[in-house]
């Protein structure tokens, strides 16, 4: 039984390894970004957040800082698109732009508030590995008096520069969580995209 199991898992892991190598060589040919660059982007992002959190700023000045960080390190348009989900298709170009803009302010306010929990803490980048066409950067957050926990950043250069497009904290990913929230906002406005965007401008 055990032999059988281990043989099967050996085969599976060999297949997985081969697949990974295959993807890796393709992505290497197509993209300039490497694991080193992906981790250094995340290190810079984490340092920037850390500095901002500990700067003593609050309210709007703090949120403006976070909006700058978001615009600098994250691929805001692709995040906005994937968070809006199926409605993206029916949205006009103007609505897409308005949504992306409103979403960026919303994220800055919302996560700006939540980063308070990070005051006095630190995040250490551990490793990076390629997955399909992007990179997964693993880090550990150490907050005062708490058990360390895992934070994963997904980084892609498909926008033309290296950008974070999702953050996953102990398995909870921002993309899905926000898609749920935007979906609820749309439901509340009976699917009216403009009304949802106007709600989004004050939410967070």
């Amino acid at each position, binding site marked *: 039984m055990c032999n059988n199991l281990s043989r099967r898992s050996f085969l599976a892991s060999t297949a997985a390894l081969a697949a990974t190598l295959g993807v890796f060589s393709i992505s290497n040919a197509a993209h300039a970004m490497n694991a080193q660059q992906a981790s250094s982007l995340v290190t810079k992002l984490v340092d920037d957040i850390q500095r901002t959190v500990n700067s003593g700023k609050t309210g709007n000045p703090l949120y403006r800082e976070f909006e700058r960080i978001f615009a600098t390190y994250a691929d805001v348009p692709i995040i906005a698109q994937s968070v809006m989900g*199926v409605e993206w*298709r029916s949205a006009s*170009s103007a609505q897409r732009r308005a949504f992306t803009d409103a979403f960026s302010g919303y994220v800055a306010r919302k996560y700006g508030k939540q*980063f308070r929990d990070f005051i006095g803490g630190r995040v250490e980048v551990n490793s990076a590995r390629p997955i399909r066409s992007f990179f*997964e950067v693993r880090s550990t957050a150490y907050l005062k008096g*708490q058990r360390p926990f895992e934070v994963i950043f997904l980084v892609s250069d498909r926008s033309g520069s290296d950008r974070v497009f999702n953050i996953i904290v102990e*398995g909870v990913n921002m993309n899905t969580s926000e898609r749920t929230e935007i979906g*609820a906002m749309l439901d509340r406005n009976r699917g009216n995209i403009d009304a949802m965007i106007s709600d989004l401008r004050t939410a967070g």
Partner: protein
Amino acid sequence: MKYELPRSFSRLLRSGTCAGLLLAISACATPQQPARDEINDPFESFNRSMHGFNKAIDRAFISDAARIYVTYTPEPIVLGIANFFDAAGEPLNAVNNALQGDIDGFTYSTLRFLTNATLGIVGLFDTATELGIPQDDTDFGETMFVWGIGEGPFLEVPFFGPQTTRRFVGRGVDIVIDPLGLVIGFFDGATIQATLFLLDALKLREDRRSTIDDLLYNSVDSYARARIVYLQNRRFLLGTQDGPNYFDPYVNPPAGIAPDDDFGDTYIDPYEDPYVQ
């Protein structure tokens, strides 16, 4: 390293004393793993009212109690109680790791208990972590997962919050199989364990205050968010959300859109005019 036990093991158990219990979770006896972000919530309207109840309890009591407990109790005492709670959970971790065939996990839980009970002065200090012995927290819900039992419908339970049916049933089993409970006695031990559970919950509430406040009071639909956040976190803890399954927004179009409609490739300059087609 985890060794999966044969599925017949759970069949064997079903015929034993746990027959009634396993009958209760027969609804979740589908061994395949949930797809990414899959939600199975047939009791949604019941769950939503329980969510309303839990929120009311948080607003009226838990939130303030958490702030008062953590603010006015000296930090070493808060940490000591948290460590004690963790140490007291290690024998149960050891049992579940053993039931899962997780030999490393069993060794760590046992070593952690012995170390913290002695060098850590009855569990008040986490000496084991300082010595580099990893923590492998588990529960009977995870044991059932290892045995191939599906997670079952999502539930929101008064006081305990969101969970899968498998986790909820596992909590009941954990009370019965906890070696520490057997030693200190169910009834004498119950008050102590309930108190520790409450204090640990208060610390967690305060540690993650801004995140939990945002989720509960700053969401359009806090139930839907709590549900997806819980499910993702639980599946992550059980190791069923592997990296290679990540959603790739550059390749995958938004849900419900035909696969050939790949926005990722029409993407030109995000800051000039990203959506010109």
